[in-house]
């Protein structure tokens, strides 16, 4: 241990020594973070000893880490001592009918084409028995259980399937991987767990929508997906409806484990509150997502549509360990007003004949900043590996910024890496061509942008894709001129 580390270690444990005790009966922890708080969270969730130890180790590591500065984002650093790291899941206030919901929000729902039932669910309106999402969820769960598929909240998995959680947690994103991942590991609130047994093709798209109690996973969400040999699953996270949260900092972790010949598709639509037109408020979204193709011929595919959050820091990555394994990253990141996004992927080629494909479409409007950051690393053993990257940026107006930071490291001679990048401005002549046909300017922009992002949107499951298209249009309102 280096001297610096020693000092930090001492400091960390001293902090603990002088820490105060937290009342286990309390509904929420006092603000700030120390080992007692970690113990409190773990005790509240009635976790086994090993998990508490795992959290504590993560916490101690986190103490020694500093917030990363390398990303192309600027924001006032969160005050970690002011954050409340645990509060009991609140019952959402029941609302009698949609008439009581903010009309602005309803308008947005309507324009996104979100069904009435879904609108009620999202706003917390009590739904009638037939359409109760809980009952839908239950039948759905039964169907999955028959095939041995496990799909439940993370907390439930810790209780029901501790051996699986223990085996895989932190196996893809170690608890000391980075500042935010370490923080998440120490204090994660809840999230999803998904297990597909050997040879099973999950018959439906798994979406958090169907998961019971998915609503209040809190700001430190954790997801773990394990796909055994020859299995397949398509997983959907998030929704197009605007999500608001009183917690400004969100630091999630997603881990995917794909065994031999398994395939996992992970699709995200992220639409957290981006802040207002003047850049006030908005969510900080600092996410670590990583998958490992552990076995030969495994495949992991990330598709993301990022439109929300004030600040996004997110690099869904693939470790291609198995020979012939494949990784894909399809991304649309849209920023408007004062939003900042620094997003991209890492493709780490370890196995022979591994393949990766990156398609990134950045769209920036207003005064926003949009960066693509990617790493393609081909190790000496990863002979005959291939990567293709396409990174396109589209600018609306002249006050926004688009940046690309592609890093390429190829350590053998038989591999091939191709990188293409373009930056373009949305053309006035394109807009005029549309308006001349009767399409108003806002719709013209939406049409052109959707066309531009088509390759990525096509990767989304059908219903999701339709909603995502509307979402892009909505996000870009007022972005030109």
């Amino acid at each position, binding site marked *: 241990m280096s001297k610096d580390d020693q000092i930090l270690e001492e400091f960390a444990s001293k902090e603990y020594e002088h820490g105060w005790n937290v009342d286990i009966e309390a509904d929420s922890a006092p603000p700030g973070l120390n080992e007692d708080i970690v113990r409190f969270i773990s005790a509240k969730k009635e976790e086994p000893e090993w998990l508490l130890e795992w959290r504590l180790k993560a916490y101690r590591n986190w103490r020694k880490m500093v917030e990363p500065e390398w990303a192309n984002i600027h924001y006032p650093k969160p005050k970690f001592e002011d954050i409340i790291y645990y509060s009991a899941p609140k019952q959402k206030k029941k609302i009698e009918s949609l008439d009581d919901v903010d009309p602005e929000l309803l308008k947005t729902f309507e324009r996104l084409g979100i069904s009435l039932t879904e609108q009620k669910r999202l706003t917390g309106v009590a739904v009638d028995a037939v359409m109760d999402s809980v009952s839908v969820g239950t039948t759905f769960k039964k169907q999955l259980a028959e095939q041995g598929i496990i799909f439940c909240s993370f907390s439930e998995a810790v209780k029901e399937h501790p051996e699986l959680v223990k085996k895989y947690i932190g196996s893809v994103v170690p608890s000391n991987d980075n500042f935010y991942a370490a923080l998440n590991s120490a204090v994660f609130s809840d999230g999803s767990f998904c297990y597909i047994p050997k040879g099973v093709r999950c018959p439906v798209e798994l979406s958090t929508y169907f998961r019971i109690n998915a609503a209040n996973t809190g700001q430190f969400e954790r997801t773990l997906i394990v796909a055994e040999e020859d299995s397949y699953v398509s997983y959907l996270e998030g929704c197009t409806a605007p999500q608001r949260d009183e917690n400004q900092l969100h630091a999630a972790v997603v881990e995917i484990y794909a065994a031999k010949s398994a395939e996992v598709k992970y699709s995200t639509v992220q639409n957290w509150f981006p802040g207002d037109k003047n850049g006030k408020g908005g969510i900080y979204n600092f996410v670590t997502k990583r998958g490992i193709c552990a076995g030969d011929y495994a495949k992991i595919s990330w598709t993301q549509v990022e439109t929300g959050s004030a600040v996004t820091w997110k690099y869904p990555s693939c470790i291609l360990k198995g020979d012939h394994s494949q990784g894909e990253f399809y991304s649309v990141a849209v920023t408007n007003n004062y939003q900042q996004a620094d997003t991209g992927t890492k493709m780490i080629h370890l196995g022979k004949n591994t393949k990766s494909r990156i398609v990134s479409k950045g769209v920036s409007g207003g005064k926003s900043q949009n960066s693509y950051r990617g790493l393609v690393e081909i190790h000496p053993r990863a002979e005959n590996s291939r990567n293709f990257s396409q990174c396109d940026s589209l600018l609306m107006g002249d006050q926004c910024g688009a940046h690309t930071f592609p890093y390429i490291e190829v350590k053998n001679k038989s591999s091939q890496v191709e990188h293409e990048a373009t930056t373009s401005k949305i053309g006035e002549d394109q807009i005029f061509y549309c308006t001349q046909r*009767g399409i108003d300017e806002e719709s013209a922009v939406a049409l052109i942008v959707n066309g531009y992002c088509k390759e990525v949107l096509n990767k989304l499951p059908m219903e999701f894709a339709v909603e995502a298209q509307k979402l892009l249009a909505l996000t870009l309102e007022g972005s030109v001129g």
Partner: protein
Amino acid sequence: MLSIKNLHASIEGKEILKGINLEVKPGEVHAIMGPNGSGKSTLASVLAGREDYEVDKGEITFKGKDLLDLGADERAKEGVFLAFQYPIEIPGVTTTNFMKTALNKIREHRGLEPLDAVSFLTLMKEKMKLVEIDQSLLSRSLNEGFSGGEKKRNEIFQMAMLEPELSILDETDSGLDIDALRIVSNGVNKLKTPDNATIVVTHYQRLLDYIVPDYVHVLFEGKIVKTGGKELAKELEAKGYDWIKEEAGVAS
């Protein structure tokens, strides 16, 4: 239907149109000819509402409405259509999708329900026949990688879909092979009704053999310097523009 009075328009401070007067009535076909750079496309763009152009003087009324008050999309909804001299590429957007969006916007303006998928496809099939355009072309990204002729044919297909009251065809004939010219012209003729009007901008008499104009105007240095019947086009074809330039020179 369309009335242009003393229209002056400029771009980036440079005056291009210098007092245009033109009256177009329903059912009429007007041809506009004139040397390169005389302002034909500028006139078409100003009519269609392109924002880069500044209208400095004059007025344009269309169906009794002040056209200059309307944005480009509103003009299109009112029935103004421009077949572009250089159609624009829009990657990732198919002609089909483009037309569906446009048509439904125009229908919405007219208080009509959006067309459902089946009726839309039926309509599309019908209009495709009119200009003998292939389905496969319509499923590709709009104008992207289209040949010159395909782009022009696609413009007329769009015109057929939107059924405008005033169509402005800016050199639609250039780039078309001999057969395509006949097919596209026939398409335009079939779309003619007593209620709609067409302005064709062209350099060649040949097109006017198919689309027979009621009037031929010669635009020179931003002004209409001569107007005649269809025989004027023949005369121009034979003699070129010099004599017109001279006449104009004498006149001014």
